[in-house]
């Protein structure tokens, strides 16, 4: 039976998840990811998300560097990086990040440098928000496991 602390943390986690879904930050793919986690693979979600953060930060850095010089912008490479970021964002349910990537890709296909720069800023902002919220979620999970000794299964309906 969950202790009071664990129950409260679980309620907080459910509220945070509900908020992130309501804001469109996450979609049902994140739930699918959580459903793939079980006793045989207890850290699956955090492993996937860690790799997502690592790879996304490399891609964002590359995008920033590709847009550094207006005259020499390689829009093909920008498109490649965006496809990668879109693909991985879809896989973890990072809906808003993916949506911004789509708009960014459209700007790059039109060689719209100022549009790309503006969308890169939006993308960086969305990514930071996602990362902050997922870190919060994982910290709550860690505390909850310590309090109750059982893994989190989302109660989001």
């Amino acid at each position: 039976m969950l202790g009071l602390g664990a129950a409260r943390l679980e309620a907080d986690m459910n509220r945070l998840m509900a908020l992130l879904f309501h804001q469109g930050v996450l979609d049902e793919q994140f739930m699918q990811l959580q459903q793939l986690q079980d006793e045989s693979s207890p850290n699956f979600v955090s492993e996937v998300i860690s790799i997502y953060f690592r790879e996304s930060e490399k891609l964002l850095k590359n995008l920033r560097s590709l847009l550094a010089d207006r005259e020499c912008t390689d829009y093909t490479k920008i498109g490649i990086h965006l496809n990668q970021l879109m693909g991985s964002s879809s896989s973890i349910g990072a809906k808003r990040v993916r949506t911004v990537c789509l708009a960014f890709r459209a700007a790059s296909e039109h060689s719209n440098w100022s549009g790309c720069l503006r969308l890169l800023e939006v993308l960086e902002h969305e990514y930071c928000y996602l990362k902050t919220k997922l870190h919060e979620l994982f910290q709550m999970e860690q505390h909850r496991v310590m309090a109750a000794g059982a893994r989190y299964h989302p109660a989001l309906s």
Partner: protein
Amino acid sequence: MHILLHQPPVSFYIWSFFVLNSTIARICFSLHCDGGRASMGSTGRRVLLVEDIEINRMVMRRLLSDSNVGLEEAENGKIAVDFIKQGRTYDLIFMDRDMPVMNGHEATKQLRSLGVTTPIIALSSDCLPSDRDRFIHAGANAFQAKPLSKIELVRILTEYGLNITRA
């Protein structure tokens, strides 16, 4: 009697031994390198996932872990084509669209030109009709939006005769 011995990968290599029966013994060595990776299912059915994004490969690995299907992975189309040229065979191929070195369209075309008749399921996070048409024209059997859910994966495996879940 089929005995499948599986050793976990060491560095970039994995060895597979197939012993068919007491009077005929056949040993096949499967050598992986350059981003190849394999797990062998107990039924001997094999799926090849051609996908450059590590997260997507992790998710597919996890999705297939409950089935009796073995999974091999190739990080781009060229590695997939090289696997076929090495003599490897598969019961199903999942082919991503956008990959470095060789993309999914080109890899599909090359596999078909090599005489590969294995069903190829194209995967893409874009679902434009032109994208689907291009893949089908290249020789893919079907087109599926990414990310693939468990339900969709089971449907595809069932459709192509691979859906055998572990007891």
